[in-house]
């Protein structure tokens, strides 16, 4: 229903902090895009600029080619769900959900409001508690109400700022699935802010990884995992963090760049353990710690003074203190330039 286009978007706060730096991003109509990054990377500021709660210092925002940078938040018809389930505790659940309709102009008729609230309540399973006071709800239901309140105005764009991070783990998983289902049904464009890469990977069609106010990479979960654009993305994406080892380029393809300082990156799941003297072993290390996770083990090693992680199978678990050889899946190892931190081909 709406494509979001951010063009050279920059936000500098009065103190001088540049929260978002020259951000270019196109979020296609009807897609589910996650803004992923550590806290303070500018993802929430980006959301606030899309919703209109913050004014960008420079740059433009377009919804379907229409510049909306100067429109007030209410005129943008976006739905916003906050991390701290901003519930109006002095109102009932119905009053909370219908709030957006009641303040809109022209205001729909009472019967229309009632019908819409009923629809939303059915989607979210809030039917039985419509008359309850919002302050009496459980944390889980509060976030459902917040979700319902943002849905009622039928926004073309949904903005969710870490909406489930305060919920308990089981309900969080349920709500993630629910959200995917709802998005499938109504087909809105969803922008989802999270610092949890598992959440981003599992839900989003596309992920925009941000760090220090800059876009690091924008791509599908598979692209981010298999072909990270730089060292930051490589380290941030992946449930067991990628291993990094210092490396030096021995022979440039055309003789140029010989002796260039690089970093080799390889994911823990792309390394096999072998006997310490095995011929195919690239490196050797000593086992420091084993984390048994059931389906797999995470084995922490010391490789020439560098911390190193390998995903192992529980059946072939070494012992702490063992010396082991490491066999790299060379097709999946990555190289990063130490000066630019960018990924290097070959």
């Amino acid at each position, binding site marked *: 229903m709406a494509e979001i286009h951010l063009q050279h978007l920059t936000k500098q706060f009065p103190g001088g902090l540049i929260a978002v730096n020259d951000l270019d991003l196109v979020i296609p109509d009807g897609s589910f895009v996650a803004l992923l990054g550590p806290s303070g990377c500018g993802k929430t500021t980006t959301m606030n600029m899309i*919703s*209109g*709660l913050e004014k960008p210092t420079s740059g433009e925002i377009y919804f379907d080619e229409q510049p909306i940078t100067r429109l*007030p*938040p*209410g*005129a943008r018809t*976006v*739905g*916003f769900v*906050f*991390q*701290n*389930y*901003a*519930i*109006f*505790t*002095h109102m009932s659940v119905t009053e909370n959900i219908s*709030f*957006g309709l009641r*303040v*809109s*102009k022209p205001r729909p008729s009472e019967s229309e409001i009632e019908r819409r609230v009923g629809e939303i309540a059915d989607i979210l399973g809030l039917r039985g508690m419509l008359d309850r006071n919002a*302050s009496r709800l459980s*944390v889980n239901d509060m976030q459902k109400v*917040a979700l319902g*309140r*943002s849905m009622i*105005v039928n926004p073309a764009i949904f903005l969710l700022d870490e909406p489930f991070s*305060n919920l308990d783990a089981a309900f969080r998983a349920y709500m993630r699935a629910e959200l995917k289902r709802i998005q499938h049904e109504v087909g809105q464009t969803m922008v989802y802010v999270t610092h949890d890469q598992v959440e981003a990977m599992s839900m989003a069609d596309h992920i925009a990884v941000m760090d220090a106010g800059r876009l690091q990479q924008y791509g599908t979960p598979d692209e981010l995992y298999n072909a990270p654009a730089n060292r930051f993305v490589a380290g941030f994406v992946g449930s067991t963090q990628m291993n990094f080892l210092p490396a030096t380029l021995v022979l440039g393809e055309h003789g140029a760049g010989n002796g260039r300082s690089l970093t080799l990156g390889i994911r823990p799941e792309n390394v096999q353990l072998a006997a310490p003297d095995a011929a195919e072993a690239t490196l050797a290390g000593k086992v420091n710690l084993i984390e048994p996770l059931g389906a797999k083990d995470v084995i922490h090693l010391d490789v020439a003074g560098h911390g190193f992680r390998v995903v192992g199978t529980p059946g072939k678990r070494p012992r702490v203190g063992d010396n082991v050889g490491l066999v790299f899946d060379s097709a999946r190892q990555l190289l990063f330039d130490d000066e630019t931190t960018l990924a290097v081909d070959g």
Partner: protein
Amino acid sequence: MTAVEPELTVPGAEVKLVAPRRSVLGLLRPLARWATILFLMLLYGFPLYWTVTMAFKPPAEWNPPGTIYWWPENWTWDNFEDILGLKEQEGIFATGKSRSAIPYIENSIIAATGGTLLALVVGVLAAYGIARFRSGGRMLPFQILQLRMFPPIAIIIPLLFMFVYLQLWDTLWGLIILYGAVTFPFVVWLMRSFFQEVPREISDAAIVDGCTHWGAFFKVVLPQVKGGLAATALFVFILNWSDFLIALVMTQDNARTAPVFLQALQSGSAGQEYGKQAALAVILILPPAIFGLAIQKYLVRGLTFGAIKR
């Protein structure tokens, strides 16, 4: 000295039960606690008791030399009738009805209510600006509170000249403006902390839903702090209601308030008219007491608690 140790023999069994020793201090401590509480209650309660009973005493029992009437011997409503202007005056200078305090009570109600409303309207908006938008910088709230760090008497003389010049002296408008100005810092200081407890997301959510900043403030933020608002209103009203100094200097007769009238209740023949003063004092207790009871349920804080997880 040790406590008595009772010996208790159970028939058929040679069991000796000994009550646990209690030190003298252990026995005295609760006693001392209750004695202190009782003493403080008497200390604070007695003036109120004396005022209320005084209001029902006839002149002969007010302050006779050598006797103290702890309790009115001859109960009477005379003092109230007198102060409300219902009684025929007696004596050679009698000019009809007694001098009624009602116009002064009216002045008090108008000035205290008006001043409170003025302080609330200006102060609440200022407090929201400071809490939500950090208007005026970091030092502004403290600077506003500083306005109350000197006694009003320090500026009352220049104020007097200023108000005479502005023709606000001895007018209710003048009093309302002064009361509003004097209590405004308290409103800002109190309401700022209440507004700070309201999560920013609450107003942001309303704004995204289509409200203006004003709409979000009135529809969503203000209802969240209504408990704090009620407490602030009561506090400020009591301050204005009980003002003596400002009204004494800034009014003559037109806008004279009840506390000033009360102090002036004396006559050449009878001296201080304690009974009438007490009767008026009892009447003056009522408005803040009723106001307090009416908003009691809002005085309970914690309306926004649990609305947000930090």
